[in-house]
């Protein structure tokens, strides 16, 4: 496969993974305004550094890691602002039943829960993507589940 063909394939594959990549961006940032910009930046970096990706490394997992690195570096901080001070109406979950669970998760637990419980990554793989230890992944998974179960209990009690 030529380099040109590989570049084209990577961009095509990235487009195929766009829903997953965009969802991870939502879990990571919790901010709807700059999500697409973060996704574009991560995908451009993936194209630019495609030769650095290991053959055994899944493309979506690699893009997740690039995105987390971009976010951690604060490269797009001015586009996102301070997430903790966002009004409730601007948060991801506002007006969307699919985002309600995400909005209820602790800030640091949401991307980890998405990686392990939804994307099916092991703790070790998720730790690599997030740049933390597997033990920290386990703790964040527990915190996420506690929060989710509490929300579920609270909702049941309100319905009753």
């Amino acid at each position, binding site marked *: 496969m030529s*380099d*040109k063909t590989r*570049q084209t394939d990577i*961009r*095509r594959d*990235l*487009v195929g993974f*766009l*829903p*997953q990549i*965009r*969802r991870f961006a*939502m879990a990571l940032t919790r901010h709807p305004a700059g999500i*697409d910009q973060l*996704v*574009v930046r991560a*995908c*451009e970096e993936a*194209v*630019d*550094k*495609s*030769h650095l990706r290991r053959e055994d490394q899944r493309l979506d997992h690699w893009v997740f890691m690039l995105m987390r690195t971009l976010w951690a570096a604060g490269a797009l901080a001015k586009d996102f602002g301070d997430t903790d001070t966002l009004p409730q109406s601007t948060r991801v979950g506002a007006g*969307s*039943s*699919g*985002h*309600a*669970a*995400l909005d209820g*998760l602790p800030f640091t637990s949401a991307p980890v*829960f*998405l990686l*392990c*419980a*939804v994307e099916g990554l*092991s*703790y070790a793989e998720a730790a690599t993507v997030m740049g933390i230890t*597997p*033990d920290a992944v*386990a*703790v964040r*998974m*527990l915190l*996420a*589940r*506690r929060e*989710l*179960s509490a*929300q*579920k*209990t609270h909702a049941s009690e309100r319905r009753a």
Partner: protein
Amino acid sequence: MENLRHAPLDMRISALLDNELSEPERLELEALLGTDPQARALFDTLRAADDEACLAFKAMLKEPVSLDLVRSIKTATPPRRAVRLPEEQRPRWTLRPSFSLVCAASFLMFGLGTAAGYLVAGRPQMVTYAELAGDPVRAWLDDVASYYRLYSRQTRHLVEVPATESAHIVDWLMATTGVSFRIPNLAAEKLDFVGARLFSAGGRPVGQLVYRNSDGEVIAISFTKLITPNEPQTDAPPLRQTIRDDIGLVTWQGLQASYVLTGPSSDADLDTLAARIAGII
């Protein structure tokens, strides 16, 4: 995950939901879930919340993706790479000599070396600087002959210093050539002293006393500091006459100088004249 055996129950259940427990831990926890209703209830609660959240996350995948986002990624600029221009296919030639080829090459090199050695050894000796420079006696005589051929044809500029300044001639040439001499009086031989000049021959300063005979021919006595020939001639005659074209040269050596008498080769008494001069100069 390791060391979850002593972790809180909900963390162990969480790890069980993620298949992160080791086999003994999983078996132990499943046994507990089978016997402990509270643990079972906690497990069910966490799993139900898990399932609900997963469904919510999966629903997020159905959200529309903007066309601009897709276009931005599809048109992302690939990294610049070095472009290798097509090159002409060069025939690859690898050296794989066979045994016969090696033998042939070895014999060829041996033959060339032998021939070169023979040629070098065939020369009697190497060319030395002295050989390149030539015999100093021969070089001196060559120059003297050349100057004679040139000046003997002069009429007004035959000499530099005329005969009227004989004392000055002696002082001048003695100081210049380092040879003490007297100006021979050759009136008996019908030679009139015309004057003297100085020139360089064989890289040495040469003094020349110029005479003219009754026929107008020029006879010159040239002298310079003693020249030692390359090959000493033990039985060399005191006078040695050579003829170069129309010029006759008679050479001899004194104690401190080398002399040459130059005149027309047609002069038969040139050697006799030289012998007389050698006695009085």
